[in-house]
């Protein structure tokens, strides 16, 4: 058996090794902490603020905890002098550690509520928003652009600097649509349309995925989001219009009904009956 001192030393060494490992080697791969759009930025600000408040709480609690352990350990010489088994409480102290957390909660609740309401609206932009209708199926992502009348499967192209209104639904189990660098996720649910605003600041490629378990192929429901300049985006749309086949109703049904993975696909148009969003009630926007 190690002495208590040595044991504490070992624990400390082990814990610092873990934190070193966690801090090194990851850097820019921490998507949530590298926001690339206004929505993700707002959420990031809240994450940082809540972390700062909590870190303050943590330091106070951990400090007090360590102090009590060391100061009042039974093995400390002269412990009998400080020992007082009859202390029952202290009103002043108890009021303090009730009131300060109340203040912290207020400091956190106000920006939380503000941001919650702010994210209902499109990010401020000089450009008009575009809409993409997102449908999760087993186990693929279907993206329909109602204004451009084109469809992609398992990848997404958006113009940078333009707010994108995603209308989310599902034709199978629930899922969630998540592109961490652009912003938080929202559920796709059968029978309902849920709205989500996202925007990319600049051109780039961002990884998105389904975040709610939907069965065997769920882990593979990953897709790339290509953010392009407005001109490149327009070019891409016209290429799709001219170079790619139209989606037939048969194919559309197969995509939805067939339980399996799907490759990346592009269609110059889609039949109106294939739009799952048409029959749904709208929620949350």
């Amino acid at each position, binding site marked *: 058996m190690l002495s208590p001192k040595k044991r504490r030393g070992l624990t400390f060494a082990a814990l610092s090794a873990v934190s070193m*490992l966690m801090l090194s080697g990851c850097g820019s791969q921490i998507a*949530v902490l590298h926001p690339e759009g206004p929505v993700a930025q707002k959420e990031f600000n809240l994450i940082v603020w809540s972390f700062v408040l909590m870190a303050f709480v943590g330091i106070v609690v951990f400090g007090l905890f360590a102090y009590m352990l060391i100061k009042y350990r039974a093995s400390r010489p002269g412990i009998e002098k400080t020992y007082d088994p*009859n202390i029952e*409480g202290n009103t002043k102290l108890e009021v303090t550690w009730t009131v300060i957390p109340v203040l912290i909660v207020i400091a956190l609740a106000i920006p939380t509520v503000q941001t919650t309401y702010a994210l209902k609206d499109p990010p401020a932009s000089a450009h008009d928003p575009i809409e993409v209708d997102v449908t999760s199926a087993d186990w693929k992502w279907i993206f329909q652009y109602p204004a451009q009348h084109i469809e992609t499967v398992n990848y997404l192209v958006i113009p940078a600097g333009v707010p994108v209104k995603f209308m989310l639904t599902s034709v199978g189990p629930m899922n969630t649509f998540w592109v961490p660098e652009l912003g938080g996720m929202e559920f796709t649910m059968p029978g309902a349309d849920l709205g989500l605003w996202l925007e990319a600041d600049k051109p780039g490629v961002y990884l998105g995925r389904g975040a709610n378990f939907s069965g065997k192929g769920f882990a593979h429901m990953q897709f790339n989001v290509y953010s392009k300049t407005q001109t490149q985006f327009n070019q891409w749309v016209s290429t799709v219009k001219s170079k790619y086949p139209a989606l037939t109703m048969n194919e559309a049904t197969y995509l939805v009904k067939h339980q399996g993975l799907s490759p990346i696909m592009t269609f110059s148009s889609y039949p109106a009956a294939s739009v799952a969003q048409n029959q749904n009630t709208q929620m949350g926007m």
Partner: protein
Amino acid sequence: MLPHYFNHLFVSGIDIYIADVLIILASISIVGVLTYFKKWKWLWREWLTTVDHKKIGIMYILAAFAMFFRGGMDGLMMRTQLAVPNNHFLGAQHYDEVFTTHGTIMILFMAMPMLIGLINVAMPLQIGARDVAFPYLNAISLWTFFFGALLFNLSFVIGGSPDAGWTSYAPLAGPTFSPGPGENYYLFGLNLAGLGTLASGINFLVTIIKMRAPGMTLMRMPMFVWSTLITSILIIFAFPVLTVALSLLSFDRLFGSHIFSMTHGGMPMMWVNLFWIWGHPEVYIVILPAFGILSEVIGTFSGKKLFGYSAMVGSLIAIAFLSFLVWVHHFFTMGAGATVNSFFGVSTMLIAIPTGVKIFNWIFTMYKGKVRFNTAMLWSLAFIPTFVIGGMTGVMLAVAPADYQYHNSYFLIAHFHYMLVGGTVFGVFSGLYYWWPKMFGMKLNETLGKWHFWLFMISFNLTFLPMYLLGLMGMTRRMYTYPPGLGWSHLNMLETVGAFGQGFAMMFMMVNIIWSIKNGERDLTGDAWDGRALEWATTSPAPEYNFAHIPMIYGRDAFWDRKYGKDKAKYTLKAKPYTPIHMPNNSGRPFLMAVAFFISFFGFVFEWWLVAGLGLLAVFFFMFSRSFETNTDHYISVEEIEHTESGGGRS
């Protein structure tokens, strides 16, 4: 009339075959040992038919240990699969089953029975009672839980495990996307066990209200009793919701109704609401008793009164009240709208306030104390920082817009493992080391206990701390594999090492138990740790009737008071003569009724209506026969009490 699942009755797969063989070997050896040592009668008389709360508690804990092992193996399989990218140790289907059973078992068949077991062992003793209010019902609770758990576990080898996650969201868990018996096992196993839990809640509530020793006012109750009282109220309000939800989904699956389906006007989100209206109070049901354990252990090993007793009671009540107002925070991202999200975000943050009060009170209980670092105390102490980390990230999750980035990610997984392992499991270990002498009359070995503690605590942090980071890197829960190049690989490997470290640490506990049975220090005084509450005022283990004389109470920390307090004189018992003690009779009916339930529900799982119906009929038969039973209790004679109290009856 061949049932349509008949072809899938026996599951194939190499690990299933291994499980089959192990189950058969284990069964043969259990039967062999019982027969060889002629212990069948002993098993039936002393254990299977008992209504003694202490024995029922021990059986709860035993079953929970078995489930801990099963759930732990699931966890290790998951961590093995995720150790490296693109791994093929488990397939998708198999992984889905494993995480489903891991979650369900750990929460409902490990944490709950472990705590209910400890409550059974300690609570009636702490209030100076002879037993719980309804000892017979207590046995029914145990056996319905036990056979519910058995039914759920049976899915592994017969028919296939459920695979829609422990949350079982419709429509994934509905008949379209989860055909086969697996999900039925989930529904019927949980419903059977839930019945027992609800009965336990009622039983504990009535026990605490009606059975306290004279002089023990509510505000003189030990904090563990308070936490049990509040937990019971939570159980009584929350569990009926689960029963209803499970039954409705069973209708969808067995009888073709469309309550949670996506066609014919069904509403999948209704399941999510019902599940979490039960599910959020449920997480407090598994943490509040652990809070209670902490209050007992920290007080005892600091040699101090609990700091801020009234505030501790108030915060328990506040947490319980708030726990019913936060369920939507489990699905901020389901489009409820800004107003709803704001309300539930703020109500969730509010829980941090009473919880913070408790943390500070525990820390200040050590103030001017004499802190002894026994194993039981180490677990309670480690609880504080891990629970604070879990709690702080919990508040971060309550920030609704930020939750859009954490939801369903490993950040969330890290958070609730800090609460459920760093909280509940650490608390349970603390309680086990603390009350072990009371249950079995001997202490667990301190050296082995400390090895268990340090290895487990370090490995636990190694497993779950990196998960926070993985969540921020975009890794989501329930992925059975992930591609390389995302920066996830090293952290995942680290977590796997940690997980096996925890498994390794548990071996120290097992060795400790076996070693201590033979060599452990006997507790001859009944007061193993210089304790404060009444459970230490009787022998270890306590006699069947707990106290020969029902104790009188004059203050908080009744036993400490009797030993050292200013009221010491009041407690000096005049040598009163013993009087016969009124006790309930043992009965085999609770066990048999649970077997009948098991058979019936097994029939429901496979839609074998004849089996289901006959089983239910048997259940009703047992209820009926109980109603006409007149010989339900007996008296323990004065001679027998004298014999026991003089040490003759001590094992």
